[in-house]
Every structure is written in structure tokens, then in C-alpha cells.
């Protein structure tokens, strides 16, 4: 059973529906360690993707490319741009496919992670969204069953948040907060948790 356009649309819909719930949470988390706009970024980005959802082609690569472009259409926030870079990397990888096997998912997450690292110049272990992606890639490695992958990804984002909560931030605006960032969730990692939960169809 491969993942196809309708699976993508379902994931988009679930995440979009959750945005009102996450709006304040993400703004507040980003407010503590940055400029307080991450809820806005995610809400806008998902609204733009939702606006093009009916036009998404069957070709999953082209569909991801379109999502990537839509996500950054109106804003160039760090997170939005990093997400777009990741989606574009995935798009390149699956261009021409109308379905993706669950077993391919780990590699796609890894490809997104690597591209984000290349352009964002952050280190793995620096308490950014990279660490969430890295955790997902590692936890889901070798899995073939979609339900197993979902569970593992959800566990991964939660564990990553817990593992980095008490480390200091090193990148982006949060870096400025140094020691004060200890004990606080990285907003981008928190956003990735919400993304993964929604894609996996779990409620937060």
C-alpha cells in the first residue's frame, strides 16, 4: 500500500485543521526565544498550501514542489524557508512517482534534513528542527509498516524535544538567549512535533 496524492491531501487537511489550536502555542514558544511569529508562519503556510490543494498534481514530486512554493509564498520566515527547502529536496527525489512506499519515508526525511543543514548551516545537536528530523530518520530506519513508522516518528519528535529541552540554543534568534533557553522547547522542534502528529493522524 503506497502513499499517494490522496494521502498527501489528508495530511494537509489534518495539519491545516489543527493550526488554530497551535497558533498561540507556537507564537508563545517563539515569543520566548525569538520574535513570536512561528504560529503565524505555520498558519499562513498551511493556508497557502490548502489554497492550492485542489490543483496538486498526481505526480508526488510536482505536488511537493507546489507545496514548497506555496508555503513560502507570502513569507520568508526562517522556519518557512527551511521547510520549503526540505520539501523541495523531497520533491526532487520523488519526481515522477504517483506513490511512495512507506519504506522510502526514512530516506525522504533524511534528504530534507541534509538539505536544511546545507543551507541553514546549523549543526545536528544544535537544538533546532534538524534534531527532530534527525531523530525521525534514525527511529524509523529500516521500518516498512506505515503504522510502525507513524508510531516511531511520533515517539521521535517527543524524545527529541525532551532530549534537547535542557540544552542551550545555538542557532537563529534563540541563540541570543543563551543559558536562558535552557528548559525551553525549541519552537521549530515543537512545530515539527505538531506536523508529525497531524501527518500521523495522532492527536496532541
Amino acid at each position, binding site marked *: 500500500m503506497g502513499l499517494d496524492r490522496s494521502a498527501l491531501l489528508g495530511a494537509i487537511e489534518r495539519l491545516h485543521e489543527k493550526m488554530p489550536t497551535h497558533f498561540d502555542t507556537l507564537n508563545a514558544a517563539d515569543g520566548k526565544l525569538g*520574535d*513570536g*511569529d512561528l504560529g*503565524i508562519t505555520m498558519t499562513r503556510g498551511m493556508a497557502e498550501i490548502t489554497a492550492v490543494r485542489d490543483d496538486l498534481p498526481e505526480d508526488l514530486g510536482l505536488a511537493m514542489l507546489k507545496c514548497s512554493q506555496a508555503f*513560502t509564498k507570502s*513569507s*520568508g520566515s526562517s522556519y518557512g*524557508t527551511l521547510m520549503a527547502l526540505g520539501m523541495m529536496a523531497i520533491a526532487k527525489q520523488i519526481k515522477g512517482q504517483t506513490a511512495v512506499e512507506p519504506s522510502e519515508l526514512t530516506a525522504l526525511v533524511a534528504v530534507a534534513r541534509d538539505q536544511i543543514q546545507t543551507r541553514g548551516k546549523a549543526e545536528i545537536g544544535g537544538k533546532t528542527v534538524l534534531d527532530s528530523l534527525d531523530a525521525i530518520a534514525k527511529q524509523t530506519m529500516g521500518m516498512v509498516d506505515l503504522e510502525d513508522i507513524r508510531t516511531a516518528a511520533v515517539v521521535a519528535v517527543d524524545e527529541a524535544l525532551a532530549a534537547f529541552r535542557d540544552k542551550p540554543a545555538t542557532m*537563529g534568534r534563540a*541563540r541570543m538567549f543563551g543559558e536562558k533557553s535552557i528548559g525551553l522547547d525549541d519552537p521549530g522542534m515543537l512545530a515539527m512535533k505538531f506536523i508529525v502528529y497531524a501527518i500521523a493522524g495522532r492527536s496532541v
Partner: protein
Amino acid sequence: MKKILNSAADYVDEMLAGLVAAHPEYYRLHGDSGKVVARAREGTRGKVGIVTGGGSGHLPVFTGYVGGGLLDACAIGDVFSSPSAEQMADAIRSADQGAGVLRLYGNYGGDILNFDMAGDLVEFDEITCTTVLLTDDIASAPPEEHEKRRGVAGMVYAFKMAGAAAEDGRDLEAVTAIAQKAADSCRSIGVALSSCTVPQAGKPTFEIADDEIEMGMGIHGEPGIWRGKLRTADEIATEMMERLLADIPLAGGDRVSIMVNSLGATPPEELYILYNEVKAALEATGATIVMPLVGRYATSMEMAGVSFTLCKLDEELETLLTAPCDCAFWRV
């Protein structure tokens, strides 16, 4: 949220519409995004283009400084957030007159990611781009890590000097070198008295007690060096000048410009009160003040507070600083 607006979502688009409607002799919107502002008149073929970009909410920064002897185009994002790479690419395309384009902007992660991506995009148009990042905020990293510092009001000096060099017909390499020299010559520090509200967030970006100030706070509310009770104007100015002068020492014979900048709500009356001590501190080093800038040059909407930017001049920079320029917010 006590702001005059129609809807938070339309804040920037309506602001830009009003800006170009009020000053059609200076500005026009370029491209489809509605978020790229270019000079009203097409540029001169062969002139180096200068573009900048960044979040809205800092007028006259960024858009306001598009004008003669200043910038050619600007991509502007939502309040306090980066424009998209596609918008930046549009700005670069509009600024290009065949002589290449300098990307001159503040050192913020989102802006860098997007301006880099924009560079990839305009490679297809065969436009040569260079980059100079402003890193003038001394509160944001120690001198050893000065490349990590944020860009704040120092960019106004860089816009001015690079803009004058480009107007003067210099080539991309020379204009880029001037911009880099200007960026290297500026040091800024700010103090915040009250927050501002990002329209889409709807509540103040940070909380600060009614009798407290934060020294070194960033223009988006990034944390500073200390938070404490409000002090006198002289005490505030003295500390800020000491910190600046520790970072960029001056000696007799040096020539400097100084910007005493309101972050928004702080009225010019208070800037002039501060200026007395600023001037005394500079003159105590033996330096001569050239063209002090006192006013609102780089703001955060209705934030109360001030920033000082010290710009050490050499003959070349002084000539470029005092050369004519013309936009809706500043004329020399």
C-alpha cells in the same frame, strides 16, 4: 492591540499601497508579489544596483530608503519576518542594470536563507550578485564573534555610502567594498523602554515593567545585556557611549558620525536631551562629529526606546555620507 489598521493580514499590503500612493515620485511596486518596492523611475543602464530586504515594521527601514543616492529596490516581508526568496529575486531583477547587484542587508537567519536562495534564482537571469551583511549591534555578540552580530540602524549608513558610490558610477566590486567598509565602521546599541505589537500576533512582543528598561535589547525584542530601573538620560547615554567606544575606540583627529535614533514612540525631544551627553562623550575622545543624525531612522513601530550608531569615517566614507540623496524620509 491598539493600532490603526483594517486587518492584521493586510497590514503590510495596505501600508505599501499607501506608501506608493503618497509618494509616487519616489516609489513604485514592482512584480506580482506586491511586496517589492523599486525606485519610481527606471535606473541608469550600467549603474550597480543595490537591494535590501527584511521584515516590515521598521520604517523608514527598509523600503523607505529606496531612492536617489540610496537603494534601488527592496523586498519587504510581513512584520518582523523575512520576505520570500522569490520576492528578493524580483527586487534583484528590478535593480539590475547590467552591472550587477549588491545585496546589502542585516544579519538575520531568515533573510540570509532567502537572499541565498534568491541568488540561486537570479543566476538563471545571469545577474551577478555580491553580499554585504550588517552586523553592527554590539549587544548581540562579543567582539570575538562579531560576525554573529545582528544588523540594526547601522544599515542606514551603509545604504547611504554604498548608494552614493553606486550613483557615482563605481563598479560592483568597488560598491561592495564600500558597503563592507561602511558595515565594518558602524557599531550600534539600543535600549528599549516598551514593546511593540506585531499586528498578527495581537499582543506585545515582550513585557517590561512600567519603570524598567532593557539595555542592549534588539529591535524585535531580543534580550539585551541587563534589565533594570529606568535611569536618567545622562546615565543612559553615558553607558551606551561607553559600550560603543569600548568596541570601536576613537582618538584625537578621528571623524565620526553618530545616529541618535528613536525606536518609534520616543519623541525627538528625548533624543535631543540625550544628544547633549552623546556629543560630550564623543568630543571627550578628541574626535570630531560630522553630520549627526537625530531622529527616526530605523524603528520598531511603536516601540519606545533609542539606539545609538557610531560610524567612524575616513575621507572616502565622509564624502559618500555627505553626498546628496533623496527619498521620502531622508534628504541630504
